[in-house]
């Protein structure tokens, strides 16, 4: 259920600004990183790598791509200017191609297809925002002024778990600070105004 992160590897200013614009319009987009260095693909933990094949020679490209292939399920997308260009690459080098020559709605549709179908089911529906019972409990404690450590002790869970819950709460509600969460908790009757810490 977390957001999707992208790394775009290209030197082209037009590709960068264009992709940033379109990706930011997708609901599920988290962070977008840019680089002009192909060797970054081994170091990145983005969910999707958009690669402009013109960034380097064919040999280096294939070499670098093979280094990432086996690990963490990163999805490689080749950026092309015409659908026929896809035939220039060996099958399997890229999982997808994104043809950048189309209209806005065409490119957005391709982007949606690429991101939606290839994610593990947990990552779909990035916009489900309802708090779980557990999250509500934790939110209540936060609003009452308790620290993460105190909450962990009260609920017999680890600090790490508390922090994960808090990250999820913040993402779901779009509220980052403790005072903001307190306002939310009062407005939604999770605590009384007089209780606020």
């Amino acid at each position, binding site marked *: 259920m977390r957001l999707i992160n992208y790394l775009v590897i290209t030197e082209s200013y037009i590709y960068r600004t264009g992709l940033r614009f379109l990706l930011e319009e997708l609901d599920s987009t988290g962070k977008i990183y840019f680089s002009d260095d192909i060797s970054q693909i081994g170091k990145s933990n983005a969910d999707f790598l958009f690669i402009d094949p013109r960034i380097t020679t064919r040999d280096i490209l294939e070499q670098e791509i093979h280094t990432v292939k086996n690990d963490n399920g990163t999805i490689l997308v080749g950026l092309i200017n015409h659908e026929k260009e896809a035939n220039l690459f060996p099958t399997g080098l890229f999982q997808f191609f994104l043809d950048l020559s189309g209209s806005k709605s065409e490119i957005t549709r391709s982007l949606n297809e690429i991101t939606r179908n290839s994610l593990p089911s947990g990552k779909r529906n990035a916009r489900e925002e309802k708090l779980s019972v557990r999250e509500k409990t934790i939110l209540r404690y936060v609003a009452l002024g308790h620290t993460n450590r105190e909450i962990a002790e009260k609920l017999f869970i680890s600090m790490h778990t508390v922090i994960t819950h808090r990250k999820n709460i913040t993402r779901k509600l779009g509220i980052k600070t403790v005072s903001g969460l307190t306002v939310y908790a009062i*407005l939604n009757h999770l605590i009384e105004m007089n209780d606020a810490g």
Partner: protein
Amino acid sequence: MIHENTKMVDLIHRNYVLITVFSRFGISLGFGDKTIQQVCEEKNINIRFFLEIINSFLDHDYFPQEQLKSFPIKLIVDYLTITHQYYLGKTIPEIEEIISGEKGICYENKEHNYLLNNFFQEYKKELITHITREDELVFPYALQVEECFLQHKSTDTLFEKYGNYSIGHYLQAHDNIEEKLFDLKNIIIKYLPPPKNPELCYQVIVLLFNLEKDMNDHSRIEEKVFVPKVSMMEKVILNKNKK
């Protein structure tokens, strides 16, 4: 890309928000057909610096770090200080008037007014603390570092006055001001019910978004230009002192 022969009026047609940036350089209206160069000469403004600020303001992917770093710290500090004054003297009172003023936003339930006002006042307090710290500690410190650096002065007085302070501390202290502003927007947009006078809410939302954008540009200059420049000079003078 904006260059010295661009007309001032064209700049504003391109992005009207620049009016506020101009005002920080002491430039007002009535440009006729004057170009950037003409106006900068008249007002005695460093045109290279002006162009870098305008270009990085218009395009976030444009960031000429190296060039901006070649300007004297005084120029950057002056610009940042005036921006601070603008926030505290103009933007914040404008928003406060709508959120907390007698003729401001009014909710059916008084508790909602209290919550919003309370949250805003907390934000304002934090912002003032943050800005005061920069104006009274960080900027004077940076100016003195530059003085030591340029005039090869001893760092004794610097240490006397600021102890072991370094610009690195400043980065650590760059705190959650932005987060509070983000929350304030969402509280009004998502969580409070519509007030009796929604047009005031629309108005304040526009102000908050503008403030946020402006502050992002402001922090970009602080973090990418100001801090690296001071930190570079710190290293040089500290090394000299050791020898």
